[in-house]
């Protein structure tokens, strides 16, 4: 999003749940435990984890580099291998043709096609490089809110699940009209409200 530079697009959350104690110590351990690790197996499609805000290669967090005043700041790195659909299709067709020639058959079974597709996928996956994506996280510890630079539904869900798995805390998207997000003085105004037309 450019927490450090440029324009920002972000999703707001409330952080809900029982906070660990002692907070900073436990959180530091959890961040390191869920830090980014490179894709190990050639056939793995995706790798996720936390990295330092200013350096996607830093998953060590020396000197608690995630701590910034009252805030926690780090990035969510997702490395993903994408195989273009057209490439996979071509490879499967080639394999189909090869099998037909080898076995001298005109047709091959659905089961065999399915196996060919999986083998082609694995073969292409092992030769494809993963592309990294980075999303910044800013977590206000005392005020229990967080902003995340991902805005697409897919990456938000991925982040929410990873965050919960790591910190055992829930992220609730912030909407001021939700009673849980509203200050006490506004709660009564949010009960039983009906949509309003501005014209008759």
């Amino acid at each position, binding site marked *: 999003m450019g*927490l*450090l530079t440029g*324009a*920002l*697009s*972000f*999703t*707001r959350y409330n952080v*809900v749940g029982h906070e660990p104690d002692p907070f900073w110590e436990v959180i530091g351990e959890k961040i390191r435990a869920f830090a980014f690790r490179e894709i190990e197996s050639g056939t793995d499609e995706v790798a996720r984890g936390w990295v330092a*805000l*200013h350096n996607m290669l830093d998953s060590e967090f020396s000197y608690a580099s995630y701590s*910034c*005043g009252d*805030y926690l*700041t780090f990035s969510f790195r997702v490395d993903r291998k994408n195989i273009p659909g057209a490439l996979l299709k071509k490879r499967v067709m080639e394999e189909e043709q090869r099998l037909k020639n080898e076995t001298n058959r005109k047709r091959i079974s659905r089961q065999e096609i399915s196996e060919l597709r999986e083998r082609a996928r694995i073969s292409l996956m092992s030769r494809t490089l993963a592309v990294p994506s980075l999303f910044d996280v*800013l977590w206000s510890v005392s005020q229990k809110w967080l*902003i995340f630079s991902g*805005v697409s539904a897919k990456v938000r869900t991925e982040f929410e699940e990873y965050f919960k798995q790591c910190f055992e805390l829930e992220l*609730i*998207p*912030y*909407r*001021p*009209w*939700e*009673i*849980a997000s*509203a*200050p006490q*003085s*506004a709660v*009564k*105004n*949010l*009960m039983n*409200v009906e*949509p*309003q*037309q*501005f*014209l*008759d």
Partner: protein
Amino acid sequence: MSDQTTDNSFLGREFLTWLWYKTEERGGGVFVPGIGDVEIVFTRRIVLEAGEGEYSETVQCQGLHANLKEGRAALREGKKVKEARLRLSKGEFQWEFTFKADEFRFQSLRLPQMMALGEESDSLEGRILERVALVQEAMETMDSLFYSFLDERSKPDWRSEQLPKIKRWIESY
């Protein structure tokens, strides 16, 4: 967390539509409780919509002044503001962002020019804290404006005085 769940998401578009009216009521100036006077300008891009999903009808207006005429026409058809590019000014500071009503979300938020704060702001931490303070100020301003709208909407004179004013504003172009 409260167990009570409500589907009040329609308030997002009502709020952004009300905010457009509010900015023009006093020529851009809007009073924000707890914050004071700010200036808000709807600028360049505005999207209005009626209905949801496959039954929705959307109007997009782009350009410096295009929004006034076409946007107002869309309001007259019962559409509400779904997203808009806003410029928020407080004293010397100026923020610009696209605001998405349905998710109450900021997009492409440009922060005010940083002040020269000396050596501290040269450090990474200083730079982050400075930017975070500016982001938070924008969020708090929009939150306060929303609750100000909600408060106005809940007052006894909403139907008798405020709604007729909004209606006159919509019909005045």
